[in-house]
């Protein structure tokens, strides 16, 4: 008996000693992400939410979105200290900042690196964003610190394409050529933090870049941890093992997390626009009166109630709010009037209601919305059949044109052209050789979308975009439901060092100003 007691004592002591040791060094920000593993750190390939924040502190563009802002009208100098354009916006000349160093021993940024990076982004073999750069004709290095980009046609908000986002990120030519496919795990950029170690399935560790051109970061480093389980991430945040954590995107989580001492919730844009795309070529939805009935039966304010005020904001158009060219002058339906909807159906020759089939992802937040819609439509005699499948199956099947109604949630590069082209231009129609994500087979605004793309005068361009939105809304290609913001939990000890309103990288980025109290 005495022996067992002393064993227990020893064990307890050992446990206490082990847990008393600090788990992480001070000055290292612990950032929890809802993912199994890293996809890639190659900025020209990083398309998923968990991969994007990383590129925000590894790389710079020629210009940048101000930290915490998604305003494409307020881009700041980044690697370029100044730039000028010709009259019609087809020739852009950038003067690079002198003496900016790449991570490790990869030397200073020269015009060669910029030329290489932008060509790499425009090449579909090395970039997921190649089509964004279709309009580029040539990229030349005039001298070691001057780059000239010539466009075939003017591009709406061209500066956005050379910003610190997606293909605009500048990589080290030498490193990218040397490392090839390994660049995704051993990237070399110019940002405030650089990769120290990647442990598969577990974390990526970053250390501060002491030579960062805006000054050495206040933090010593970042631990970017992959924790797929929502509850584990929450517990780790509570226990102080994480400083920042990707939230569960619903009101219940926001309220519960806010209530915990020492923890705050950051809510940010860009908002993902949630829309029901109605297949205009599939009966009975090919009848505009039937589409009108669906749009009238859906109740937009109920969706906002369902998701919660903190995370949902009203939609105003068929492109996300804040996009360059967004226009909310045309009413977008969604009144939630089942009687009126039932009458419209009866007038259209469907007195007994209709049945619609919908392939739906099993992602919990999206499934909840679809079920709310199902209940709303049922009141008007519209039977929405949900065929619930896992997320990858959903993505595959909706691209095979197998769903009459497609519930899609998306944010794109914040210029109306991108969203309009991908979702509402006939060239993007699913099932065609050039398909992207036009699930509604919408083709009523092709001309306006194309003219706006080539229009050099910003005012005329805005008018064309507004007209395109009006036509799409009036043809009821899609019914906007609401816009979903992004929530993160954060320890009060974290000071971002900037005003976090929005983040193009879909998660707060860590800058040289970010600090831990």
């Amino acid at each position, binding site marked *: 008996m005495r022996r067992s007691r002393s064993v227990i004592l020893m064990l307890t002591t050992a446990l206490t000693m082990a*847990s008393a040791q600090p788990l992480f060094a001070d000055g290292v920000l612990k950032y929890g992400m809802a993912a199994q593993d890293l996809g890639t750190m190659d900025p020209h390939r990083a398309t998923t939410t968990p991969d994007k924040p990383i590129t925000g502190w590894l790389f710079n563009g020629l210009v940048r979105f101000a930290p915490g802002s998604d305003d494409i009208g307020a881009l700041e100098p980044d690697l370029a200290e100044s730039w000028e354009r010709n009259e019609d916006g087809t020739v852009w000349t950038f003067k690079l900042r002198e003496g900016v160093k790449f991570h490790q021993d990869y030397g200073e940024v020269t015009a060669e690196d910029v030329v290489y990076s932008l060509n790499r982004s425009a090449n579909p073999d090395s970039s*997921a964003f190649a089509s964004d750069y279709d309009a580029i004709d040539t990229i030349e290095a005039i001298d070691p610190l001057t780059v000239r980009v010539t466009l075939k046609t003017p591009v709406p908000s061209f500066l956005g394409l050379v910003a610190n986002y997606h293909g605009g990120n500048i990589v080290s030519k030498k490193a990218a050529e040397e490392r090839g496919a390994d660049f*995704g795990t051993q990237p070399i950029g110019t940002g405030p933090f650089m990769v120290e170690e990647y442990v598969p399935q577990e974390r990526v560790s970053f250390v501060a870049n002491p030579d960062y051109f805006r000054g050495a970061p206040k933090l010593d480093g970042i631990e970017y941890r*992959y924790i797929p389980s929502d509850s584990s991430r929450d*517990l780790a945040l509570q*226990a102080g093992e994480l400083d920042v954590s990707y939230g569960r995107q619903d009101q219940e989580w926001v309220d519960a997390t806010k209530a915990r001492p020492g923890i705050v919730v950051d809510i940010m844009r860009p908002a993902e626009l949630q829309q029901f795309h109605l297949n205009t070529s599939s009966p009975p939805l090919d009848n505009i009166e039937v589409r009108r009935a669906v749009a009238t039966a859906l109740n937009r304010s109920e969706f906002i109630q369902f998701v919660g005020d903190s995370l949902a904001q009203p939609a105003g158009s068929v492109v996300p709010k804040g996009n360059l060219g967004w226009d909310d002058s045309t009413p977008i339906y969604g009144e939630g009037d089942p009687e009126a909807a039932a009458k419209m159906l009866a007038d259209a020759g469907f007195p007994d209601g209709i049945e619609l089939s919908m392939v739906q992802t099993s992602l919990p937040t999206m499934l909840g919305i679809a079920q709310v819609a199902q209940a709303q439509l049922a009141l008007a005699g519209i039977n929405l059949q949900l065929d619930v499948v896992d997320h990858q199956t959903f993505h595959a099947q909706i691209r095979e044109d197998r769903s009459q109604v497609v519930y899609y949630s998306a944010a794109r590069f914040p210029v109306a052209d991108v969203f309009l082209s991908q979702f509402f231009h006939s060239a993007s129609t699913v099932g065609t050789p050039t398909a992207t994500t036009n699930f509604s087979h919408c083709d009523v605004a092709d001309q306006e979308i194309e003219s706006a793309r080539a229009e050099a005068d910003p005012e005329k361009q805005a008018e064309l975009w507004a007209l395109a939105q009006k036509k799409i809304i009036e043809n009821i290609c899609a019914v906007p439901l609401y816009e979903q913001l992004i929530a993160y939990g954060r320890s009060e000890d974290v000071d971002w060092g900037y005003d976090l309103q929005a983040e193009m990288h879909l998660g707060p980025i860590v800058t040289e100003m970010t600090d831990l109290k």
Partner: protein
Amino acid sequence: MLGYFAQRALTLIPTLFAVLTLAFVLVRIVPGDPALIILGDQASPEAIARFHQETGLDQPIWRQYLAFLSELAQGDLGVSMISNRPVLTSIMEVLPYTLELSFAGVFVGVALGVPLGVIAARSNGGWTDWAVRIFTLGGLSFPAFVSAVMMLLVFSVWLGWFPVISSGKPITDPAGRLMSLALPAINLGLVMMAYVARVTRGGMMNIMRADYIRTARAKGVPRRRIVWKHALRNVLLAVVTFTGLYFSVLIGNSVLTEIVFNRPGLGKLVIGALERRDYTLLQGLVVAYAILVVLVNALTDLCYGVVDPRVKTS
């Protein structure tokens, strides 16, 4: 004994072949496309076609299968479609964590379950018996992920004894590694403990009525010696059989445990590979699991010999 294992290994080949074929076809029949994961949901059709060409996904399925088999015959599991890392490397990196967790789980299950079962049997119908039976019923009723979250809440958040994120301590930090193993192993072991205790209890109750036990008693052998040596040794055969069979359940539970405790391991790898439609990694994992299950069966047979000397001679 060696001949026996050689025979075992031979029977493994057709099993493995069948499992592999099934896995190969299944992952490809399920809708979904790794190209969309790599290239994103804005990918152009040309880019997707190019990806299919590069990875051989544009070939007919039988041709893909032949290519896979010929690579496998050379001991090459290929590279991950998503990360481009060799599949074998990815598996070997996390295999120690899974082995460690499984064996620690079995250890907890047996080391606690057997004594509990014996104690319950001894008190047969007494209050300790009831207590053990209620306790084990609790163990049986908790899904692994619920008990895991509860343990994290109590021991990591409230008491602060263990880390919430229990992953990735190097082998050079044995204390840290043990700390991060403790809760997941207990979680995995608790359910098993419940089963083991019940198997042991049932076995003990039967055997205690056997003739040879009565003989031993009549001879005046001390009760403690009868229970722990004469009776338990026979019950252990059932426990070993059960443990071998339970191993596949344990693997299933270890997936959930790995996710909640955020430990690296095969289970986490499987979930990730499924979500991302990483065909090559999934195939490699099926091979790994099949080999693991067969090895455990062999190990179970070996244990019979240790527990019961009669097995060796026959």
